[in-house]
Structures are given as structure tokens and as C-alpha cells.
């Protein structure tokens, strides 16, 4: 009789652990040299403490009661616990504050390859450094970490969480319809976006623009070709691009359709792609409003790499480089 483990979790044996450890050690080295001190927070937090930050897909999946009947939740990411930590423990510290972490988060995802319910994240939070400087620093550290991990062909999608909602609001789309359109866009349902626009009564040039924007993605040249309201909306992305070293800048894909499902993002959002893996291996963005909910209003930016997916992409790239390898 063999005992099972919960769906979406798994054991890690020495061969794999050895590779994971080597990878995270190299990444930690990058984070620490860039001035990011490693922190660890409890895996369990009070639901009431953290509920304010949680929205959408990051609703906690695991809840337990403690001996006094309080509801505790397993954290779904490290960004919100670190926002809490900053207001608790760094009330008077001068910003900017730099933290990194290597910690598990817990989500009620559908288990499959690279999609664990207990996922190890390697990430940083840069608190008190507004855009564009803070955003450019986060992107630079992220690329250095990916380079150190050994990944060669990765690209970083950069969008702006406020761009599409801003366009919808400017065109007078009501809040409810805006939510439905954004939901279709987050899912990548372009047919659904078109239907929703029709139902909402957006037509002509406005509809054409709203359908075209999510397909605009590519190098810095896409930012140069914009006009009108769109040109203005891309100002932030251009400012970030101007601050980056070439080795970081050349990794970027500017993506006007990049909308993240995490509710707390306010400005630039990123996503890491690698041709060796069919799903993003990391993500991040600006969350300038979140810290304020915990009592220390500071602009902030961060990212998290999914260590398991990074490992899958690395082995995929290695296989691709092997002689006679397929894809």
C-alpha cells in the first residue's frame, strides 16, 4: 500500500534537487550583488490581514483554522506578504528598500507540467523606487538572473496594465462592460473581445483601435509607430526603454496587449518567455497602490521567476543545442 501526496504537489529527489539548488544559488548571487537582501515570511498568514491585496486568480486556495478559530491562508505569492512586512518592520526606513526571496507559494491551479500547486518562486521586490528608474532596475536584475541561470533564448514581454483599461475608459465604455472586455483579453479570447465590443456598442474607429491594440507587439520600433492616444499611453514604456542597457533592451518585446490577471498591478507589467517552454516562466510588474493598503504608501515593482518552469526551459534549451536534437 503506497501513500499518495496531494494533487499538484510532488517530491524532489537528489538529482533534480542538485540542479535546482545550483540554479537558485546562481540567481541568489545576482540578487545579493544587486543589493537585494533575502527575506522569508510565514507560509501561513491571517486571511484578514492579506485579503485586501488579493484579487482575481490569486484568491487563496488553502485555508486552515488555528486553535483560536482564526482563518489562516497559505500565501499565493510573496508580493503581498512583503508589502505587509514593509509596513510592519520598516515603518521608518528610508526607501528604496530591496528584498529578494526564494519561497514557495500555493495556488489552486490545474496540475500539469510546470504548474504545481506548491510552486517555488525566486523573485525581488524594489520598494520606494518609482518608474521609470525602478522599473528599469527590476528588468535589469531579472535579465541578469536569467542569464546567471543559464537561459539563452529568453525574451521579456513588457506591457502596461493601465493602457487598455485607460483606452476603454476614454472611449466611454462603462465599468461593467470594461470588466468583461478585460476578462476576455486576459484569457486571450480575441473573438470574445470583438463580440463584447459589438454588444457594448463600440464601433467604427474606436472598435478598430481596441481590436488592433492587443495585437501590437514587437521590438522598440512598435513604440515609434504609434499615434494619438496610443502614442501618449506608451510614454511610460518608452521612458523605461531609454534607461536600459542594450543587453537588456534587446530582450524586450513591447506588448500593448499584455494584461495581467493580478489585480494589484498599476503600470508596467512583464512576462518572461522562452521558446523551449510553452508557458511563461516568470512575471512581474509595478504595484504602486498596494503598499498604501498596508499603511506605508510607496511605489513598488517586483518580479517572480517560477523555478520549476525555469528548469524545464533550461533542459529544453540544452536538448535543443545537443547534436541531432529535435526542436
Amino acid at each position: 500500500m503506497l501513500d499518495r501526496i496531494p494533487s499538484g504537489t510532488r517530491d524532489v529527489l537528489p538529482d533534480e534537487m542538485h540542479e535546482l539548488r545550483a540554479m537558485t544559488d546562481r540567481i541568489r548571487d545576482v540578487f545579493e550583488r544587486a543589493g537585494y537582501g533575502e527575506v522569508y515570511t510565514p507560509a501561513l498568514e491571517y486571511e484578514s490581514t492579506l485579503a485586501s491585496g488579493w484579487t482575481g486568480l490569486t484568491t487563496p486556495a488553502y485555508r486552515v483554522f488555528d486553535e483560536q478559530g482564526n482563518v489562516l491562508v497559505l500565501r499565493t505569492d510573496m508580493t503581498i506578504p512583503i508589502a505587509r512586512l514593509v509596513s510592519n518592520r520598516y515603518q521608518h526606513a528610508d526607501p528604496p528598500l530591496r528584498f529578494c526571496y526564494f519561497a514557495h507559494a500555493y495556488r489552486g491551479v490545474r496540475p500539469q507540467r510546470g504548474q504545481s500547486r506548491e510552486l517555488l518562486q525566486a523573485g525581488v521586490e524594489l520598494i520606494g523606487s518609482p518608474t521609470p528608474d525602478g522599473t528599469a532596475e527590476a528588468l535589469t536584475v531579472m535579465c541578469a538572473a536569467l542569464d546567471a541561470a543559464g537561459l539563452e533564448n529568453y525574451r521579456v514581454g513588457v506591457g502596461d496594465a493601465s493602457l487598455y483599461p485607460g483606452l476603454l475608459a476614454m472611449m466611454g465604455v462603462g465599468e461593467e462592460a470594461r470588466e468583461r472586455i478585460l476578462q476576455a483579453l486576459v484569457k486571450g479570447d480575441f473573438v470574445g473581445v470583438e463580440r463584447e465590443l459589438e454588444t457594448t456598442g463600440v464601433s467604427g474607429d474606436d472598435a478598430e483601435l481596441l481590436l488592433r491594440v492587443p495585437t501590437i507587439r514587437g521590438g522598440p520600433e512598435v513604440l515609434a509607430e504609434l499615434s494619438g492616444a496610443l502614442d501618449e499611453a506608451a510614454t511610460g514604456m518608452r521612458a523605461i526603454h531609454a534607461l536600459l542597457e542594450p543587453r537588456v533592451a534587446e530582450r524586450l518585446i513591447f506588448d500593448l496587449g499584455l494584461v495581467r490577471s493580478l489585480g494589484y498591478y498599476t503600470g508596467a507589467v512583464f512576462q518572461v518567455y522562452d521558446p523551449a517552454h510553452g508557458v511563461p516562466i516568470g512575471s512581474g510588474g509595478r504595484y504602486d497602490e498596494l503598499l498604501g493598503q498596508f499603511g506605508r504608501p510607496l511605489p513598488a515593482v517586483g518580479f517572480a521567476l517560477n523555478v520549476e518552469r525555469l528548469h524545464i526551459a533550461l533542459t529544453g534549451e540544452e536538448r535543443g543545442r545537443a547534436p541531432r536534437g529535435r526542436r
Partner: protein
Amino acid sequence: MNDLHIAVPRGALLADTLDLLDRLGIETREVRENDRKLLFEGAGIITMRPSDVPTYVEAGAADRGITGKDVLLEHSEREVYELVDLGFGECTMVLATVAGEDRAAEALRRLGVMRIATKYPRIAARHFLQTGRQAEIVEVKGSVELAPLTGLVEGIVDLTATGTTLRENGLVVREEIVRCTARLIANPVAHKLKAEAIDRLLERLGAV
């Protein structure tokens, strides 16, 4: 070898899909001549059951694919981009029961729940939830039309194009749930990393 891999559904959508690929300049002769082979490296075509298309595309084993909206609705948890409504393969998801008095409605009224056979348990369950009725969903793999004729269930939820099969089995459509057509889907990462190739395809489709 072709840079992009497309997942192509075998079955009812195959003929229209291959015609479309021909118009897009993708070589389909080998696929037409060979209905046992599955992988056509030269043309970049992978053939499979329609319901497997989102699985391959989500994982990135195919960059893009063509499948019915019915499949996408049933597997709505698959993270794929739905790029274009291709318009062909039109059919309707319906609730059908044996002709004459509506036995499903009677069961619901007198027994509080109706038993419904389907190959689309999630679409069916969602439909009855949204319309405020209790239904026991019985998942079957083969001919759904058989289920109400034998008394296994009172009604079925199934896809119909012309309604011929339903009529031949003495069933009538009671409700239309959703109209479905073929869709072009893409892997989200491929949509970013192979943007040019995918946009070129969309342009040729006249959809951009």
C-alpha cells in the same frame, strides 16, 4: 521543416480546414493522401482528434491549431489564445428529447431533476446551472442519441449541424444552447515569440 506547427482536427472539420490551409499556401496534399499518418513535418501539420487540439497548443507542442468552439467551451481551462472565428463548421449545441411530450421537463417538474446524456458534461452543467435547473449529467462516449431511446436519460445535450441524426432517431430540439464554429487558436508564448509568422497568417486570413 516548417517553423510553425499547426494542429489540425481530423473528423468533420478536416475537409474545410485543409481547404483553408490550401488557400493560405500550406501544402496539404500529403495529408489528403494519407489518413493514417499523424505528423507531417514538411508541411508543419499535426493531425489529431479535435478535442486534443487545445491540449497540444496549450503545451506548445503545436504553435497554433484549429478546432471547434464546442471543444474550447468544454475545455475552457486550457490557456490558449482564440484568434479568429473561421466561420466554417457551423453547428449548434442543443438540448433534445424524444418527440412528443417533453419528458425532461416532466422529470424536472415531478422528480426535481432531469437526467441528461452528453459528451460535453461541462457545457451541459453550465447551461443548466445558468438556467436554474437541476440536472444529473451522464457522460457517454459513443452515440448520445441512444441514451434517451433506451430510458437511460430523459434528454441529451449534443452538437448538431443539420439535425438529421436527431430526426432519424425520433428526437426534437427543445433548446439551442450555443452556436459553434471553427476557431484559430494559438499558444500564448508562440503568439509573442513568433509574432511575425502568426501575424502574417492572420493577414492572409484577411482578419487583421
